[in-house]
């Protein structure tokens, strides 16, 4: 199908839906690297205009990645719920934007709609939305998940405590965990990116976190971010696995580059649930994603990176995850060049994920070879918090000394809580109060020596 847009004397033609979506994407270096980006500002807007006239239904009949060769496409189309889609099934992409911003799009209506939308629809509408549209529409979507606490309730924002250490040293990891807890962070998960993939080391890290959580009765969950096959091995070896982690992407071939298939993810889900370690729910999966991963693996099928990222959320939601994290600035400048592109991508990812019913958090981050700094991170963090982001990262001083990138700090989380009045997961909030880490107002109490948490250190 060819799409046409006429502006004055110029007629712009777009060769198929994938080309139209790519040309309509707000500029980013990854699409230029793939050779699919708009080549002028006017072509970009012409594509947006043509895209606005495309009926949402078109995305159901014209897969961007062929059904026959891609199990992600098959998952997305086979699990589409026509009844849930009905309220918006007659709309074009442009009308869908208007609907999302209207009073009709209530929190309840959006929750009912999620299974009726496929990722390509979410991606398409995001391309014609301004940043403020992405923030407002996302703020109306709530996705609530549970394991040992309740994540995603209105008025809350959780934090992943990320206590990474360059050599997985147990005392070093413990020091960062204690620092984070004493700064009121860790309700989303205490999640370690291990330097090692040695199974005995990973098992030791799991036991270290499990001991802390049990000893102090912390209503949170732990995770060692290792390959899903390692998590399954660890479960079989009797290690205390709370959440099963995996990096995922939006095409079968890109997932293959991560060494995973949907069947392997299902094995991971089953292994995690078999332990029955959750106390208030059984959302056991933790996924990470990021725009550009499919292109990085040579597995993008000519589809733009933001649409493929939305497809990764289509994969994620099928496994009822506790947490999905877009690691937005980690990928580097060849995919998201500067602070402006990272900010835009973070807002798109959060909006698309929430609209599709995934519990989207964002690692607000950048690398040292990107044109970005902490001022850009402050901007994105503040916008995402206003948009109702499910969780963000808490890294000591925002400096991850293992993964070598800059994220958000425990202090950053405190800043947005103070600015916007966001609470923690209620069970975790109550625990902080019981241990007098926070006062009655939910703010940190003055630090005191001899705190019980420190006695164990």
């Amino acid at each position, binding site marked *: 199908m060819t799409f046409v847009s006429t502006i004055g004397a110029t007629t712009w033609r777009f060769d198929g839906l994938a080309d139209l979506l790519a040309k309509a994407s707000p500029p980013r270096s990854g699409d230029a*690297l793939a050779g699919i980006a708009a080549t002028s500002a006017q072509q970009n807007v012409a594509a947006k205009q043509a895209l606005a006239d495309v009926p949402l239904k078109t995305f159901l009949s014209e897969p961007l990645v062929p059904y026959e060769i891609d199990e992600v496409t098959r998952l997305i189309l086979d699990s589409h719920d026509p009844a849930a889609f009905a309220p918006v099934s007659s709309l074009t992409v442009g009308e869908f934007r208007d609907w999302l911003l209207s009073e009709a799009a209530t929190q309840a209506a959006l929750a009912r709609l999620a299974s009726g939308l496929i990722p390509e629809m979410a991606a398409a509408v995001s391309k014609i939305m301004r940043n403020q549209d992405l923030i407002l529409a996302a703020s109306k979507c709530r996705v609530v998940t549970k394991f040992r606490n309740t994540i995603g309730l209105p008025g809350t924002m959780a934090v992943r405590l990320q206590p990474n250490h360059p*050599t997985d040293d147990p005392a070093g990891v413990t*020091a960062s965990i204690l620092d984070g807890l004493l700064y009121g962070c860790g309700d989303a998960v205490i999640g370690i990116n291990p330097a090692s993939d040695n199974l005995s080391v990973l098992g030791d890290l799991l036991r270290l976190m499990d001991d802390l959580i049990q000893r102090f009765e912390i209503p949170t969950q732990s995770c060692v971010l290792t390959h899903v096959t*390692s998590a399954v091995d660890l479960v079989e070896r009797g290690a205390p696995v709370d959440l099963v982690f995996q990096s995922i992407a939006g095409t079968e071939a890109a997932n293959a580059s991560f060494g995973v298939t949907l069947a392997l993810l299902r094995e991971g889900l089953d292994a995690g649930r078999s332990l029955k370690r959750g106390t208030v729910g059984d959302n056991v999966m933790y996924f990470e994603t990021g725009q550009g991963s499919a292109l*990085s693996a040579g597995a993008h099928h000519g589809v733009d990176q933001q649409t493929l990222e939305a497809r990764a959320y289509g994969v994620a939601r099928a496994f009822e995850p506790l947490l999905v994290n877009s690691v937005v600035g*980690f*990928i580097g400048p060849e995919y998201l060049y500067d602070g402006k592109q990272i900010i835009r991508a973070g807002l798109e990812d959060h909006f698309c994920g929430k609209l599709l019913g995934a519990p989207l958090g964002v690692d607000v981050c950048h690398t*040292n070879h990107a044109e970005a700094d902490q001022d850009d991170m402050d901007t994105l963090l503040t916008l995402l918090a206003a948009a109702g982001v499910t969780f963000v990262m808490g890294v000591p001083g925002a400096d991850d000394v293992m993964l070598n990138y800059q994220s958000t700090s425990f202090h950053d989380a405190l*800043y947005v809580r103070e600015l916007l009045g966001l609470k923690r997961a209620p069970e975790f909030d109550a625990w902080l109060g019981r241990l007098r880490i926070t006062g009655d107002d939910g703010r940190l109490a003055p*630090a005191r020596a001899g705190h019980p948490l420190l006695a164990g250190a």
Partner: protein
Amino acid sequence: MSRLVPPDPWSALRARTPARIAIGRSGSSLPTREVLAFSLAHAQARDAVHTPFAAEQVAAGIEALGVPTLRVDSAAADRATYLRRPDLGRRLSDASRIALAAARGPADLAIVVADGLSSTAVHAHAAPLIAALLPYARTEGWSLAPITVASQARVALGDEVGELLGARLVLLLVGERPGLSSPDSLGAYLTFQPRVGRTDAERNCVSNIRAEGLSYDRAAFKLAWLMREALRLSATGVSLKDESDIEGLPEAIAQPAIARDLDEPRSP
């Protein structure tokens, strides 16, 4: 600490980790001293990304160990192109492809030294790590291809180099993306039967080789273990789990070996 920022009572824990813990707070926010310290570290890392690669000096340092070297370039002509075009950094220039074809093996092992995103790391650590690795290669009787020193190079360049040299295994040493506290971290990627088109899931990685991280001796021990297993199993990547036992080494502690691509970053 300034007069307005009381110290955190757990500041003694700072000795246990390079992470920025117990840094105090001004209300909810970072103390002034910490904001400025972070800015300085970021400035240093930014500058490190753009340090030019002294390929000839690195090659001379390796030849001093008694092994021949070859100089190659990727298809990325300069640093600016390299940063925006990772595809070019993964392929050889035409001239380098021709030069390597003349040096074809067979060989058990090809070692490639690539500047990656921190030439500082390669300047400091490539030759000493190779010095620690050579005794293992001799003990095992592995035949070595000439050691390749590659400019504007990414991890996957090793696939093409290894394929051209006719190597069973390629070990690529690369400058990792600089962190605030680690501008000079070296990574090592191992790929069995290298050929153009290998994916990251088909590699094993030992990361964070530097003075404050993994020592040369321990990195070499771990890499030798992985190489032996790779040759035994005829595989690298997710099917080769690192279970090396390093209790025999002094000051043995668990050390990194991960399939994580730091010079072509993706979701961690």
